[in-house]
């Protein structure tokens, strides 16, 4: 549980968002457990649940890299540890 991270991507839909993020994750040894996507009020919303246990970088670096990648693509990419969502929405 400690190693699970939620990555959220919000922004205008465009070609290759998932591909570029997954390429980065694969290159950093991050394992993708689940992907969901939806359109909310015209915006592309994606959530990935990933496991960083065997990642070659630490959480802080992954977070910064993803943010920078998001800026490049033109979407907002956030990485947060899973507990905040678990705690808030589960008894």
């Amino acid at each position, binding site marked *: 549980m400690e190693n699970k991270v939620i990555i*959220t991507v919000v922004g205008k839909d465009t070609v290759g968002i998932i591909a570029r993020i997954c390429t980065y994750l694969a290159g950093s040894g991050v394992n993708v457990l*689940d992907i*969901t996507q939806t359109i909310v009020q015209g915006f592309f919303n994606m*959530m990935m649940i990933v496991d960083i246990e065997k990642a070659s970088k630490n959480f802080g670096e992954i977070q910064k890299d993803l943010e920078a990648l998001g800026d490049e693509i033109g979407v907002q990419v956030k990485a947060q*540890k899973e507990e*905040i*969502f678990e*705690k*808030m*929405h589960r008894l």
Partner: protein
Amino acid sequence: MVNIKEVIETNKMVEEQTLDVRTITIGISLLECIDADLKLVNEKVYNRITTVAKDLDKVAKEIERDYGIPIVNRRISVTPIALVGAAACKCPADFVSLAHTLDKAAEAVGANLIGGYSALVSKGMTTADEMLIRSIPQALCETSRVCSSVNLASTKTGINMDAVRLMGDILLQVADRSKDRDSVDCMKLVVFCNAPDDNPFMAGAFHGVTEADAIINVGVSGPGVVKKALEQVRGESFEVLCETIKKTAFKVTRVGQLVAQEASKRLGIPFGIIDLSLAPTPAVGDSVADILCEIGLEYAGAPGTTAALAMLNDQVKKGGVMASSYVGGLSGAFIPVSEDQGMINSVEAGAITLEKLEAMTCVCSVGLDMIAIPGDTPATTIAGMIADEMALGMVNQKTTAARLIPVIGKGVGDTVEFGGLFGYAPIMPVNKFSCADFVNRQGRIPAPIHSFKN
């Protein structure tokens, strides 16, 4: 596993509804620093605070980063300084030297504020208590992060009217010393009835003598989240309304619980309590008054306000206690005037008066909070207002407080600007009739009887 709807909901709370953790407050016992040599006390106090809280800012930043939740303040509360300095301080100026030490220590560890420049005098004042109280104007004027509080009354002891009268004077002195800045230092001074030992919120935080060596207390916030949730149930029954508030309070409190547990783990300091208070800021949408309006009032202060606030406060607690096993501090809805844009709007519309605010403090924490009054209000009248607020707490067995700001040189119709999180406030009119003969009586008001409740 969490789903995308839940993730979006949580992130919207932070990004659009100003959900944050208002403060991580480390409570530090300074009892071990007591010594008869003032220089040594100052050294020990500085070393103790800067050792225990050295990682406070770093850990708060890590938690913010890991979970994507802003933590607005890092704070420290310490053992009431009247106790810590009693053996060493021979005059008010000696206590002021301790205030400087607290200020420096807070700055060194990146704490926004440090509370505990305090005296507990609900039944009587020791010589040291009185010296500390008399040193408050100088201490608050010469420091920037030190907050002061005085417990003047309790349900078990009654109201110490000698101390109430003294605080009326002291408050005007504090106001006078900062008169070129709209008497802003009064924000750092609060008086209590039934002050809690584990309050993480300023200006009233101190580390009670019933507490352990060090403890983590966390204050959550989230008026904006409650307001947004209530927008979805307009016109629904009270049952639906209450359910919605409870569920929202649960979610908000769980965030606080997570942050508190993480901070406790990473700092190696035991977790104390979560304070469930709905704490507003002047940011648009972060207002308790707006929640009252959403519940169905044209303005906070309209008839029905006390009932609506009582219900809101109760539901917040009911939702919150399910989310954390250790709830403490003040835990209720704060109704400061200057820090709440909706409340400021009410004052400006003439919808709310000091008397209505006083009634509202009967059903929620914490009291007459951040209320600007004319600078020419007599000390006895201020003492009378304080005494009224103390009586509410004493009789109703709850915490009440008063944080009044007599703005020197300004009167009704003027506005004062406090800046940042503290907002601005229109000066409110105060009842002009005298209570001097009442306040000038010596001694204390006895504790109330605890039977024959009416």
